[in-house]
């Protein structure tokens, strides 16, 4: 495997994550449907999670899992990727799931109340 290509690929992962986030932001700001907004929020979350995991990764790392005999080869320890971002991402995913659930529940109620999913028409509260 070419190292330069790998190098670019490294950036490409970052870029993809950020791109996914930007798509999410775009959807949040532009799409009028409540559902699309909720999806966009999820997309932002996904991009962000990807980004975080990427930060923790470095080239050639291994999964940060203690296994029997792991300590025998001391070199492996430094090869392990940072486990903390992964732990954080796990938490973040859970939280994101919760939020999405709440958001969808609200969308249902809004749809029942207003009979539409267009966010521009849900403006009873203003000024």
């Amino acid at each position, binding site marked *: 495997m070419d190292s330069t290509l790998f190098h670019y690929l490294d950036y490409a992962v970052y870029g993809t994550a950020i791109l996914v986030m930007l798509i999410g*932001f775009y959807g*949040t*700001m532009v799409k*009028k449907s409540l559902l699309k*907004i909720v999806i966009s929020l999820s997309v932002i979350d996904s991009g962000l999670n990807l980004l975080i995991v990427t930060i923790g990764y470095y080239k050639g790392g291994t999964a940060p899992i203690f296994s029997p005999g792991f300590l025998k080869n001391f070199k492996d320890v430094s090869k392990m990727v940072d486990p903390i971002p992964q732990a954080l991402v796990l938490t973040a995913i859970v939280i994101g799931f919760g939020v999405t659930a709440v958001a969808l529940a609200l969308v249902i109620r809004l749809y029942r109340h207003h009979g539409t999913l267009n*966010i*521009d028409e*849900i*403006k*009873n*509260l*203003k*000024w």
Partner: protein
Amino acid sequence: MEMIHIIFLIFLGGAVLTYFAGKVSKVLQDIFFLLSVLVPAYLFFANVGIGKEVTLTLGGITLVWGVNHFSWLFSLIVLGLGSMAAIYAIGYMKGKERKGYFYFNFILSIMAMMGILLSLDLVSFFVFWEIMTWSSYLMTVYNGHETQRIGIKYFVFSAIGAYAMLMAIVIVHHVAGSFMIGSMINFYPNMSLSLQIWIPILFLMAFGVKAALMPLHVWAPDAYSNAPMAYTSVFSGALSKMGIYGMVIVLVTMINQIPQGFWFREVIAWLGGITAVLGTLWAIKQDDAKKLLAYSSVAQLGYIIVGIAIGTELGMLAGLFLAVMHALFKGTLFMVTGAVEKQTGTTNFTEVTGLIRKMPWTFFAALFSIIALAGIPPLGGFVGKWMLYEALITSNHYLLVIVIFFSSTAAFLYCYKFLFGFFLGQEEKEWAHVKEAPVVMLVPMIIMSVLMFVLGTFPGLILKPINSGLVDLGYIDTFKHLWNTSIIFNAWGDHVVLQPILYYIIAIFVFFALFLTWKGHKTTRYVTTKDISSSGEVPAEDENLTFSVGFMQPFLRAVAPAMRRQIDKYYTGIADGLESLFEFMRRIYTGNGQTYAVYVIVFVVVVLLFKSVLF
């Protein structure tokens, strides 16, 4: 526990007790109310020595309260007028709703005014100032719905003033390192020039609002006329004097210390003069007694401001003497209006007429106060006016003296209008049932009228404490060279000897009064006001012949150009403009969740773009 603390506790406890006593019994409430005004007044004058100081530490701030001669003089106004108005209020409030509310705020106002006078540090000064403001505000809106706009106007002006003062206070604290008034004064000469100019301006804004100095006076007519009359007599008589009190201190201890002070004093004096003129003109225009008196209060405060702003010894004496007199006569006049309002239910000149024979004692009080107000000898108002003119002339304010003279001559017009509107003129059938006011309301009025008379002949009685107060402020003793017990001098040595003049006046008056009464007394008869020479026409009993609509029309036509513009309108315009702006501003919150999300992103982007500027 010091006596001063006890006095404040009585006020405070009395206010709360009075409020809740109303739930038990109305009489008990009245008694509590009287006691909680009169007892502290007695304790103050009997037990609090001048020069005494007590301290209290609160929130890391040392609060110092004490009395000096100058604040003692104002205490005299506050507690004296307060006691009188309290007695009057018992009668005035009888049968009215929200008595507890009234009494509570009344006592708190008195307490706050005393607090202002006794404060030797700026924080307690400000605290009491604000308590005074809101308690008087609550009184202003006592009459309910219609008054709320007026009340808010009053409160907004007061708040602007008070906040200006608060700013000055914290700046002083910053530079002088202490909240004490004494240290502020001591440090003042060491301040930077801009502070030396701005600190007095900020203070004067606060005091100017309370003293109804143009252009900060627009709240006054409405507020004075809409509070209950029993309170307005204190409001106009004593509460406005707090502004004067503050002004004197600022003028003497700060402005006189700096070379730019001359311009300050000129500007304030001229503002006072213009206030006097405008107040007078507008007072003439009013058809409602309350409004008339309210504008007249503004005008009278203008004189007082002129007196203290020119700052000579005689000017100070004049201003403070007028302040005392104004408390007396304007207090009485508002009481008179209240009595008329209570007995007839209205205070409009176009409705009430010819009460003189129904309410003779009230008329007597009104007559005396009007004579005092107009500054006609031999009542006290003249002494104040005389000293003011002499002070203005001897200190080379030639044009100002004309301005003041114009306004005090024009004041005759509204003085007459007041007396004529209520008491003189046709005795209409509509008011035939009207009775004299209750004794409890009459007594304070009569006492104050007599006081006006006494002070007119022996002004020394009150000039003495004024003199002590001025000596406290650093003026030289003016006794014997500006006044004697019954003689007043000007700086050029001319003088008026009041006592023989009084004798002459009484003698001439009594002689001709006797002459008129004695001569042909058998064939002199009383005829009703319907029996007038109206070109032979016979007015019916229920025909209204009274001349009261458009009363001073010819004069108003003559001065119409000066009254075309109203400062009030400008303020209203500004307020409306601001409200529209705010209405526009709140549309930022569009109600669309997406917009809010965009705001967030925009905020982040903008801050990131300008991060080199911001960070």
